[in-house]
């Protein structure tokens, strides 16, 4: 608090605020580009499943590089707080590994490096955070989304609750040896680990230089004013929303062997546009379950915020300042609350977590006209599964999450659903694997990948259509781990919009016969077997009859909808 007091006398005008913010954004972009370009696993450098940000010494999110939304809104702040709690003395040269979902990490697969930025006088000023989803973390099964794990023990991940991995800028090799002894494809993990350390050190150096140039008090003053500015922007954005309260729910499928009954997540959302506050209550939800679908506290916060920010002006800064206008009610031992040890949070960034964002944006759609968003499609179909085995062409073992296709963008008051939305926590930020690279790096033969007609959630603004991906295995044995939903409960439409077609996974035999397979599992496929993965589309927004007629005709011409559907659902004669 000493710094804050010293900083009180410093006032930055609107130009100075813009300049210091640009400098900090430059720092996180530099971190992100270091990580993106030097990382090894496909999850990191092809799916952009990583994030970089700056947290204040008071453990508040100040500035984040553009990344998958589920990574960064909350979590880095909570992890930084646990680092401060567990390590009374932070020194220059320290770095900490964190992946503990009970202490602020999203899920154990998101290995995170925290570096406290300590100035020349030994004062902790900021924490820089680099987080990257790993291809493997040593789980008992070769997957990082272990939906069936009854608890953290069966899940089997090594858990690091802010564990020191560098001192005096030297790596503590004990920790590295623990990891390489346990993690499949250890070189790949080590490559990503070094890349994260590199990114965090890049951020540390840049912040130390900034402190030397501006003075720490000036930066402190900037932080507090920038939070106030962000809060004001948030207040204005909420002022523009309709006032009211609504409740909505979003349901995750029952999956045999994971959760025997569907999981419905409800959100009670109250928008007070006079005070500029949004209140989200998630307490009326099921308890933690004996599976890997429990959502970590960080992801509960973040996912609820994603649902809200999906309904706001996108230029509102996302940091601890704007977050002041969001109030969340959670309870302990709740599947979308504060999970307690040893409940597993293995799939906490996707499945049930996505239901939170969806419930929030569906509820907001119910508050008034022209706001909100339909339901976004589900993640982790087999076309985004974790593939592993030995490649007969090189004789080498591999474990890779592939990104051959997802869909799911939901209709909203402004535009049709984004085609590769992936899922609520992703926001469409990830890359799509090219067929050629997928076949080069895994012994696969992708027989087809295309959009399926008539699968969009119809609406004035329609959802994205689903994708068909057919994969033939070109090795004696290939394992595919995945856990999807959106089959039993396809993405809903809102405000008169319709539901999209759901997902589906099956084996296609040579004679054309289709054999359904579970929505979850570690599938063992043999040479010549064909796996078909159909991803779910996104829900529609507004009545299909209100859709712009030329947009309907374009969809017909593009083969996205049939003439029959144009007539029956949209009320448009294609040939008019």
């Amino acid at each position, binding site marked *: 608090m000493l710094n804050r007091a010293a900083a009180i006398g410093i006032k930055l*005008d609107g*130009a100075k*605020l*813009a*300049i210091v*913010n640009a400098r900090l*954004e*430059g720092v996180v972009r*530099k971190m992100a*580009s270091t990580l993106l*370009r*030097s*990382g*090894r696993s496909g999850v990191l*450098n092809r799916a*952009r499943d990583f994030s970089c940000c700056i947290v204040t010494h008071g453990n508040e999110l100040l500035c984040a590089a*553009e990344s*998958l*939304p589920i990574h960064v809104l909350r979590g880095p702040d909570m992890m930084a707080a646990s680092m401060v709690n567990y390590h009374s003395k932070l020194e220059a040269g320290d770095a900490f590994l964190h992946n503990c979902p009970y202490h602020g990490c999203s899920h154990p697969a998101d290995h995170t490096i925290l570096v406290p930025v300590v100035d020349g006088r030994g004062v902790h000023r900021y924490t820089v955070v680099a987080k990257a989803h790993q291809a493997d973390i040593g789980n008992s099964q070769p997957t990082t989304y272990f939906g069936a794990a009854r608890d953290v023990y069966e899940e089997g991940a090594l858990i690091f609750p802010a564990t020191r991995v560098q001192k005096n800028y030297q790596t503590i090799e004990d920790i590295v040896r623990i990891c390489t002894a346990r993690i499949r494809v250890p*070189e790949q993990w080590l*490559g990503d680990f*070094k890349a994260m350390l*590199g990114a965090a050190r890049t951020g540390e150096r840049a912040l130390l230089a900034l402190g030397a140039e501006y003075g720490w008090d000036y930066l402190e003053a900037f932080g507090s004013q920038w939070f106030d*500015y962000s809060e*004001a*922007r948030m207040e*204005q954005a909420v002022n523009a929303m309709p006032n009211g309260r609504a409740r909505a729910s979003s349901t995750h499928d029952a999956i045999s062997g994971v959760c025997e009954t569907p999981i419905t997540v409800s959100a009670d959302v109250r928008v007070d546009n006079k005070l500029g506050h949004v209140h989200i209550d998630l307490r009326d939800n099921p308890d933690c379950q004996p599976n890997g679908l429990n959502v970590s506290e960080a992801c509960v916060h973040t996912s609820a915020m994603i649902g809200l920010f*999906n309904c706001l002006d*996108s*230029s509102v800064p996302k940091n601890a300042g704007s977050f002041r206008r969001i109030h969340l009610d959670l309870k302990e031992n709740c599947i979308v609350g504060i999970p307690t040890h040893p409940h597993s949070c293995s799939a906490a960034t996707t499945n049930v977590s996505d239901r939170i964002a969806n419930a929030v944006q569906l509820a907001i759609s119910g508050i008034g006209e022209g706001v909100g*968003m339909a339901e976004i499609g589900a993640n982790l179909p087999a076309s985004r599964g974790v593939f592993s085995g030995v490649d007969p062409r*090189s004789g080498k073992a591999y474990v890779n999450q592939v*990104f051959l296709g997802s869909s799911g963008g939901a209709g909203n008051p*402004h*535009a*049709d*659903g*984004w*085609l*590769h939305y992936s899922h609520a926590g992703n926001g*469409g*930020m*990830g*890359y*799509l694997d*090219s*067929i*050629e*690279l997928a*076949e*080069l790096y895994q012994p696969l*033969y992708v*027989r*087809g*990948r*295309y*959009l399926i007609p008539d699968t969009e959630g119809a609406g004035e603004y329609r959802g994205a259509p689903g994708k068909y991906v057919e994969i033939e295995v070109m090795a004696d044995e290939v394992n595919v781990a995945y856990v999807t939903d959106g089959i039993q409960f396809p993405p809903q439409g809102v405000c008169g919009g319709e539901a999209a077609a759901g997902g589906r996974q099956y084996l296609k035999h040579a004679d054309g016969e289709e054999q359904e397979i579970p929505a979850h599992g570690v599938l063992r496929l043999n040479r010549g077997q064909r796996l078909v993965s159909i991803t779910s589309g996104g829900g529609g927004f507004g009545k299909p009859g209100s859709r712009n007629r030329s947009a309907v005709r374009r969809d017909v*011409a593009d*083969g*996205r909808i049939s003439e029959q559907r144009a007539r029956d659902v949209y009320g448009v004669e294609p040939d008019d």
Partner: protein
Amino acid sequence: MRFATDTGGTFTDLVIEDDTGGLALFKAPTNKLDPVAGVIRVLQDAADSRNQSLDQLLGTGEVFIHGTTHALNALITGNTARTALLTTAGHPDILTLREGGRVDPFDHATAYPASFIPPSLTLEVEERISAQGDVLTALRDEQVLELVEQLKQMEVEAISVCLLWSVVNPQHERQIGKLLARHLPDVPVTLSHELNPVLREYRRASSASIDAALKPTMTHYLGNLEQRLREAGFKGRVLVISSQGGLLDASEVAGAPIHVLNSGPSMAPVAGRAVTSDRNVIVADTGGTTYDLSVVHEGQIPLSRELWIGGPFVGHMTGFPSVDVKSIGSGGGSIARVDEGGVLHVGPQSQGSDPGPACYGKGGEEATLTDASLVLGYLDPGNFLGGKMHLDRKLANQAIGDCIAKPLGLSIAEAALSIVEVATEDMCQAIFDFSGSHGIDPEEAVLIGAGGAAGLNTVAVSRRLGCRKVIIPEVGATMSAVGALVTDISREFRAALMVSSERFDYEAVNRMLLDLSERCWRFIASAGSSDRESRIILSVEAHYENQAWDIVVPLPISSFNSAQDLQQLIDAFHREHYRLFAYSDEGSSIEISNWVSRVECVVGSDCMGRLSDREIVEIPSLRNCMFSGHGEVQASIYRWSALKPGQHYLGPAIIESPFTSVVIDPGIEFLRSDSGNVEVQC
């Protein structure tokens, strides 16, 4: 005598190089409806100024070099041929699906982009080749002939063909090419493996489709240009500036017009390389709307495949290598605004040239960077662009007062300074990102300011970046056209052959390298410059095992005969990786995915010529200017042409030429070099 023209969005630039190397610059408005008419017009202006007829002027010319935005404009306005795509069955949506990615996960107002070729013009060919090049499903001529009938019905004007793995085994694409040539002889065709042999089917399909779609219009445009030049009396050789930083014969461009998509901007770093021989050079070209960045490292100009037409993730990625130019929305016309929370932004929205900045008096009410510069005294209202336009300082004051000063609670002068500072910071951030991605530390680089608005804050940008030196070339306002005079005829040939350093296939690599060099020699023979110097430069695109993105590494040898040869490449890769990312991983194997040979045939000179029209010496005058940290001070106003080469001067100063104004902050020393450029040691 040689002529170089560059048709930009606003002006058509002409540079004439006489036989002694002297340069003369001319600018005329671009004729958007008939760009060639704009070229003829500026040539006529030049002839008039020399008291010659157009025929006399052109008759003495050996080479006419043309830079054009015609291909780019055709793409942006959708004025391209009706083009069909033939692709592997099961994969009809390659151009729709693209490679994923998005700019802002919360921006739901921006719609997903339409594919470059609509699905209704995409046809599936029943065939398939594996990653190893084996035929999994054989191509059947009968099916292709059925597709030919459909293509006839569709009345397509161009066709692109992109089949999966055609870079490993091109036999199916070739067979389709043959059948199309026989059955649709008048329809131009682009085969993806020939044009752009690279892995990742979207990039290949995109470049082939863009190329095919441009063929009819570019064939017509270039034919028309050449014909009208001939009619006007030109008898020499017509060359076109390519996006790869070289020149190509017009006929070569008509065969693969994607080569000229970024024709003009590619010349900025080429000119920069001729301005200085420093190891690291950053070229910043400031226009009215954009700030274009490029770099030179040890004489090399990096290329990128990720050129987006219409913006990252929402436009179309060409996938075709072109000089890496990064553009941000910051320039003289950039609009300053204060948001609802009281924070100042400058750009990316721009007033352009119509209505333009408030001070143009053409109805613009928004405050722009140009208005701020006028208010601060950096521009002379009576002598803007050599007196071609009068600027209204009262209107600039009013716009800045209303839009910026009032909401920020600052004086008009403070508000104007703030606009320049924010714009400067945005430009600096863009340079940090861009030069960083090329492994260049701005502190170890020379910054070159080009473009009409460069002088306003290039010195400020360079001080903030800590650059060693700033150079504003005397020909900086026509940088692209000047660059064209110092570059070579060049072409790149590529082969996609994935090889690991662990299992290096010497025989296949040597065979492929031999084929690449033969293609270079054939090019040298056809470019007709065998009497002059030519060279072949080899490089590879490679990555560590499991990395997704390639880096370019110069290949130190031309064939691999031993483990030592391979080790040279491995060492070069580690060094370059270290330079770019500050680490290397000696324990990891290296995968090479592409092999590149660039052939260069010398046609021009190596060093930049001097302006030959010298003006008389004038006595400097004084003007009140505002500088950050100094308040209002009297700055010396110099005519650029009146500055004595080699003599040191001290800021505050403004250096004016008919094309630009250079602002020198108080206490900063500058000189005019022997080559006529303004140089500032920071």
